[in-house]
């Protein structure tokens, strides 16, 4: 199995042991090592999510019923926004792999072009995620609970600093979405509203209108951790882009740094593929 390399390679790129295992450079191999450990972290998070979901006895929220909004549009567009986010990340992965390919042809102009597009794609993804978070946290008009454990959904949102009486057409809906749905309006609705124990609207770490508290907690942690990775990836790509502009890789004679940050970038796309399936679809 093990033996000496047949050909002497440049001392500058050899590892300290005098050999280069797997015939990859030190940096590239360490990027793979990092990605292996990082992928194990994400596996742990997603399995923890699966654990919470299978152990929970009530109804777990369904992706297309929670995420159905589009910016600038009202109405129901289930999963469309998150699908666009997925496309965005896939496309920025494609531009990254094209940058790596151009690097192998030593075509610096194309490397710059594709890497710049990758950075733009990453920034757009981050912006989309910010919108998604803001929408998730803000939520809808929400629901109230009463002493006798009744649950009533609000038909109209109550603006900050106002009460139910100020809202025109204020109403409450009990058993929403079921066969015995009842709507209360006018004085009766305001009476019930004033007897509330709790008003849940949107999501925070302790309660949310979509389902059990763990649901929002996992949403914040998993997509937040992924978003942090995207942010780091954009940062790495910007650093590589600056080095490209300064001609560092031209002088070095190879563009492997683009390949290394590309590995990280594809990994982000890879994680998103799993988050998309297990958080939004299944």
């Amino acid at each position, binding site marked *: 199995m093990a033996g000496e*390399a*047949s050909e002497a390679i440049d001392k500058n*790129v050899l590892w300290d042991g005098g050999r280069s295992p797997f015939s990859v450079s030190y940096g590239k*191999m360490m990027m793979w090592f990092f990605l292996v450990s990082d992928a194990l972290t994400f596996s742990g998070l997603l399995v923890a999510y*699966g654990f919470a979901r299978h152990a929970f006895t009530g109804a777990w929220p369904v992706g297309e019923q929670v995420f159905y909004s589009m910016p600038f549009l009202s109405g129901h567009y289930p999963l469309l926004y998150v699908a666009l986010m997925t496309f965005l990340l896939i496309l920025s992965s494609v531009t990254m792999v094209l940058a790596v390919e151009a690097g*192998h042809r030593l075509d610096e102009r194309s490397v710059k072009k594709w890497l710049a597009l990758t950075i733009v794609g990453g920034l757009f993804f981050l912006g989309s995620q910010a919108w998604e978070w803001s929408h998730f946290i803000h939520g809808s008009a929400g629901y109230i609970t009463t002493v006798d454990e009744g649950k009533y959904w609000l038909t109209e949102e109550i603006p900050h600093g106002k009460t139910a009486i100020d809202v025109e057409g204020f109403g409450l809906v009990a058993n929403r979405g079921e066969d015995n749905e009842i709507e209360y309006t006018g004085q009766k609705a305001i009476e019930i509203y004033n007897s509330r124990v709790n008003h849940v609207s949107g999501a925070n770490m302790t309660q949310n209108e979509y389902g059990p508290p763990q649901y929002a907690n996992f949403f914040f942690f998993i997509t937040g951790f992924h978003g942090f990775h995207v942010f780091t990836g954009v940062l790495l790509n910007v650093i590589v882009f600056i080095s490209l502009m300064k001609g560092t890789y031209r002088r070095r004679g190879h563009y492997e740094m683009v390949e290394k940050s590309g590995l990280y970038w594809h990994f982000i796309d890879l994680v998103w593929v799993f988050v998309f399936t297990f958080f939004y679809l299944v």
Partner: protein
Amino acid sequence: MERDDLIANDSYSLNATHDAEHGRVIRKKIYFVTILLSVITTAEVLMGVFFKHGTAIWPFVKWSFIVMTLVKAAYIVVVFMHLGDERKSLKYMILAPYAIFVLYLIFVGITESNFINEVWQTYGE
């Protein structure tokens, strides 16, 4: 046994360059994978919208989501991350931890949580 540590010309990662002709072949493959990933994602979203949770067909839909995800992941790792072009030993070093630990973790996590669910349902709060 096949020796996997020999470094021939151009096989070292820093020397991995190719000409314009070969570049066209590689780009063709990249575009093919792009279209494939887009088609699978579109199919996933459409299935997510049209099939409802709790229907008789749902378990089948759920498993097709998982299979499609694994196909997407495989294309990203093998083509985009070039793992398909690396040495066999490097491939196994990267993939083995998942075959061993993550499959086991999934098995343990899902089995145990189903038992916890059963206990809650049987004995209540």
